[in-house]
């Protein structure tokens, strides 16, 4: 009865039109690659090629012969070691400050009703869209010797001498915390939003106190978001340039500033390149470690802004 029983007359039925279909698939792949290629080419030319080139440069000393002296310098010169220490100190301090400020904020946002939350969220996103330069300038104005804070405090009689708030370590930390905070709050908020409220209700129903429910259920569930925020903030801090350059008062030399000085001021490309290569390696290693540990991509931060 059935037409199914009709036996295929072709001996090679298994590969009927297989070549044509394969060619067609290849055509489609090429089409899609063509769509990608302009973007990929640009990235390749402007990021990959120069960085590869810098890496190559870093392998040669000033006389032009192959040597590891550019890298050896890191362990020999105290000024380099100091730079690394400063950089990590700043990165840890800023990340810590961001966690301390960002967690309550994200928690509050996740508690607010939708409308209020979206209004508050705008206040988080707006700084994200505002130039780093503008925000750094604002902090300079607020924190400097004759700045707002100091003149207020003096007017109020709290202090007699201006506090050193800008052009030092504290200024850098404050300024950078302000810039990094949204990078922590946005992924953290996103992950808190996905926590199932029923899960928490169940916890409280089962007799856990609010504090215990928070500690044992909510906090652990928000950890992945916190982790991705922490990693991205830390990594961005390591390579940050603008704020420390303007607010450090020449006293806080961070890694990126060192690179700039070495290349622009001393025109020592080999040494600057070596610094850059190691910075990149540390950054990628941290991100790789993060991805390996949590299986998540840190770049997700940007899609939420």
């Amino acid at each position, binding site marked *: 009865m059935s037409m199914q029983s009709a036996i295929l007359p072709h001996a090679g039925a298994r590969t009927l039109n297989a070549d044509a279909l394969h060619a067609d698939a290849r055509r489609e*792949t090429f089409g*899609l690659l063509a*769509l990608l290629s*302009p*973007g*990929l080419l*640009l*990235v390749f*030319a402007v*990021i*990959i*090629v*120069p960085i590869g*080139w*810098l890496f190559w*440069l870093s392998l040669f000393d000033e006389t032009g012969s192959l040597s590891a002296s550019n890298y050896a310098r890191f362990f020999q010169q105290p000024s380099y070691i100091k730079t690394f220490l400063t950089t990590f100190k700043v990165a840890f301090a800023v990340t810590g400050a961001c966690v301390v*400020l*960002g967690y*309550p*904020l994200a*928690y*509050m946002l996740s*508690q607010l009703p939708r409308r209020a939350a979206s209004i*508050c969220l*705008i*206040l*988080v*996103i*707006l*700084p994200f869209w505002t*130039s780093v*330069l*503008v925000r750094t*300038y*604002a902090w*300079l*104005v607020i924190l400097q010797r004759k700045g707002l804070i100091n*003149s207020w405090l003096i007017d109020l009689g709290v202090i007699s001498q201006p506090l050193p708030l800008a052009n030092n370590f504290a200024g850098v930390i404050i300024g950078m915390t*302000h810039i990094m905070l*949204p990078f922590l709050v946005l992924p953290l908020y996103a992950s808190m939003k996905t926590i199932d*409220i029923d899960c*928490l209700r169940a916890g409280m129903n089962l007799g856990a106190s*609010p504090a215990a429910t*928070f500690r044992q*259920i*909510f906090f652990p569930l928000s950890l992945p978001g916190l982790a991705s925020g922490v990693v991205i903030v830390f990594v961005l801090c390591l*390579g940050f*340039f*603008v704020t420390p350059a303007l607010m450090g008062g020449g006293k806080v030399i961070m890694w*990126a500033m060192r690179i700039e000085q070495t*290349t622009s001021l001393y025109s020592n*490309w080999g040494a*600057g390149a070596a610094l*850059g290569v190691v*910075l*990149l390696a540390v*950054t990628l290693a941290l991100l790789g470690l993060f991805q390996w540990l949590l299986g998540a991509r840190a*770049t997700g931060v*940007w*899609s939420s802004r």
Partner: protein
Amino acid sequence: MSMENALPISHRQRLWLYALGALVLLFLIAPSVIIVIMSFSGSTLLQFPPEQWSLRWYESYFGSVEWRDATIVSVKVAVMTMIVATPLGTAAAYAINAGTLRLTGAINALLTASLIIPVILIGIGTFFLYARIGLNNTLTGLVIAHTVQALPLVVLTVVSGLRSYDMNQEKVARSLGANRFSAFLQVTMPQIRFSIVSGALFAFITSFDEVVVSLFISGGETTTLTRRMFNALRDQIDPTIAAISTCLIVLSIVLLSAAQLFGRGR
């Protein structure tokens, strides 16, 4: 506020939380507000609140040829970056979303590399490269460098737009006789246009606010606004910068509102 989002927190704790959250929000937003107010100050001293009001810093901004030229350069570069990055990013997002390519992970990583790689490295790298091919201090060079930095944002925005779009519609359009490109133009694009516009706005603002790379590769005729501001800030704190900053803040607000409005249009 309803019991729906009653999370593990008691009433008193909630008040504390809100107070703390409000303080952090204040910390985030206060600097911009202060700068806007101070930009209308009448004195060279940085007082807050200002004792006299004036527009002299705005006059100083708009009256200065140097600031004006730098602004024009920045606008030109930002517009061109937007014009280049948006179609490139959209095309790449479409290809990524099709999902039939192998190595999508590697492609994604490459396209979003500039978000992760320290900007300073991109700065010296492009400077070094441009020095060989004579692109330093040119608009073209700036546009190319900024496009690379804006591209990942466009790609991420458009990909997320495509994810929430029903690709069956494009399929239907193709079965009804439109070729792939024409189906994209007639059916897909009108529906993801919000994402595309947001991506374009991202590209614009990314380029306009870019500092580090511009420090290296712009100069002379093509000094961007941010580079000039950076140098001015290194020297002394000129209240003119408060006026410029206010303009930049307003620009951010306008672009962000535009993005939000378009986003809502869905």
